[in-house]
């Protein structure tokens, strides 16, 4: 009895204040393939369809998508496979932490290769019909002046923004953890890069892991960038780890509330990277989407 009356008074409160329930749309949740690295592209796409994803953020890494500084392979074939399963690839993410390329490269040959790699990524994104390509600032060398690395990164991102413009793609830059980079690791350095690059094809994305590790909140990011936040890697963490929702320490409902507060309707890439999921990624993806479904109408 008591519980019921409490519940009805809560409903009343919600109605009175015009509060909305935290809500997310299925199309916003973008499945990713990093943790499927032991499985084929077909296996990944079949799993996404079966589990109930509508959108994917396609990571370009072995054994799924071949992208390098010379070329890339089979855009038409990949596009067909995605479409046949009723999926839509909205974001392309070149592997940009492990592979031999980085935006902050220093040596001329490394700069050249890295630029060609990301430019090929933009072309592939365009061929696949994606809206966005994910980038980061790169990292530079630990024993060099931070400004030098920042400048190189800004130069490359400016050049890539131009390639993106030519190909109708918008770059979305995420911040990195301080263990990974000394260039863009928080909202402040992201803002500086955003202002310096200053291109309509260069926008911002939130990575909830990097954001939390930096001790920042959605308020910090939205108050700084507003509508220029066009994408997210929206995952659980403690705060480290790129985890399935439920395995970290964040509250999914509160995170979604924050998105609603700022009217964010963009994609939420499920960038799951923890090794514990590699053995049976589909099992964990199912668990993940079930948790999102609690917040779907």
């Amino acid at each position, binding site marked *: 009895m008591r519980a019921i009356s409490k519940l009805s008074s809560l409903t009343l409160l919600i109605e009175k204040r015009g509060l909305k329930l935290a809500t997310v749309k299925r199309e916003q949740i973008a499945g990713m393939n990093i943790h499927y690295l*032991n*499985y*084929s592209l*077909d*296996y990944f796409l079949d799993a996404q369809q079966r589990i109930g994803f509508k959108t994917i953020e396609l990571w370009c*890494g*072995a*054994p799924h998508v*071949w992208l*390098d*500084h*010379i070329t890339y*392979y*089979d855009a038409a074939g990949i596009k067909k496979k995605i479409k046949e399963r009723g999926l839509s690839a909205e974001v392309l993410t070149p*592997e940009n932490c*492990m*592979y*031999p*390329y*980085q935006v902050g*490269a*220093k*040596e001329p*040959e*490394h700069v050249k*290769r890295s630029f060609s790699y990301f430019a090929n990524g933009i072309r592939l994104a365009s061929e696949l019909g994606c809206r966005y390509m994910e980038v980061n600032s790169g*990292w530079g*060398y*630990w*024993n060099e002046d931070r400004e030098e690395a920042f400048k190189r990164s800004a130069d490359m991102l400016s050049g890539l923004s131009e390639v993106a413009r030519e190909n109708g793609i918008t770059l979305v830059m995420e911040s990195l953890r301080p*263990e990974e980079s000394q260039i863009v690791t928080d909202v402040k350095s992201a803002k500086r890069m955003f202002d310096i690059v200053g291109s309509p094809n260069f926008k911002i994305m939130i990575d909830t892991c990097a954001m939390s590790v930096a001790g920042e909140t959605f308020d910090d990011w939205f108050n700084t960038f507003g509508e220029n936040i066009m994408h997210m890697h929206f995952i659980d963490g403690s705060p480290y780890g790129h985890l399935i929702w439920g395995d970290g320490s964040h509250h999914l409902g509160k995170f979604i509330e924050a998105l609603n507060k700022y009217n964010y309707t963009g994609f939420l890439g499920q960038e799951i990277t923890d*090794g514990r999921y*590699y*053995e049976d990624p589909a099992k964990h993806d199912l668990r993940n989407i079930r948790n999102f479904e609690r917040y779907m109408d």
Partner: protein
Amino acid sequence: MPRLLRQQVAGMNIHYIYYSLDYFLDAQQKAGFKTVELVGQAPHFLMDYTGFQDTKKVREKAESRGLKIGVFTPECAAYHYLLCSPDPGFHKRSMEYFKQGIKACAGLGSKIMLTNCIGGTWDEEPGRTYERAVKSLKELGDAAKESGVTVAVETVRPEESKIITTVGGLKKLYDDVSHPNVKAALDTVAMGVAGETPRQWFETFGKDIIHCHFVDGRPYGHLIWGDGLYPLDRYIKVLNDYGYEGYLSQEITDGRYFDKPAEADARNFKAFEPYFVN
């Protein structure tokens, strides 16, 4: 008393990804290394399936610091170049990459190129991955012979591959490949994870173990000696018992060392100091 030659212990560059090649080489010299195993990874040595950077310059840089490049390892676990990839395109480019690696190896003045059998997908029948491994290694063996190089194959952890994760698995592969330029490499982490000992490995392969990734582990982790739980003196004694005179490469991969790799290497090299006879 177990004994080693100073030049047997080889430094590696994996944990120097946030530093330049020059910084790595300086740190090796300073720590006391005489030998390095160079990994073909950015930003230290750029290569792909069409070629590689000037080996002469890199070799000169090493030699000017009193270092010999004893072994060359094209990055073979983290990049898109994977020996056992089932996709025909991925596999073809990976094979070309490893053949470039063999040429780079010779150019750097090394006689050994290390690789493994990673890349088979888990929705493929493991037997087919295995067949591809045998065929690929025979082909690399021929290319290696032309360049005067021997390919050393290591085992990996079961998280990394469905095949060639145990000493028995590698022995079968070794017999099936049966190529004079394809030999065995002992990786002490994969060994420990598989529940094996160095003695088992030498009993199985004897002189056909031509290289070791000889690092501390718990058994997971590729750690500085002292940070794991392996008995360094007992393991060196096994090497002595079987007359192993090859390299002991310090394949340090744990993220905890990325910030200050030179400090870690100095500490690591010191752990070997009591065993040196030269």
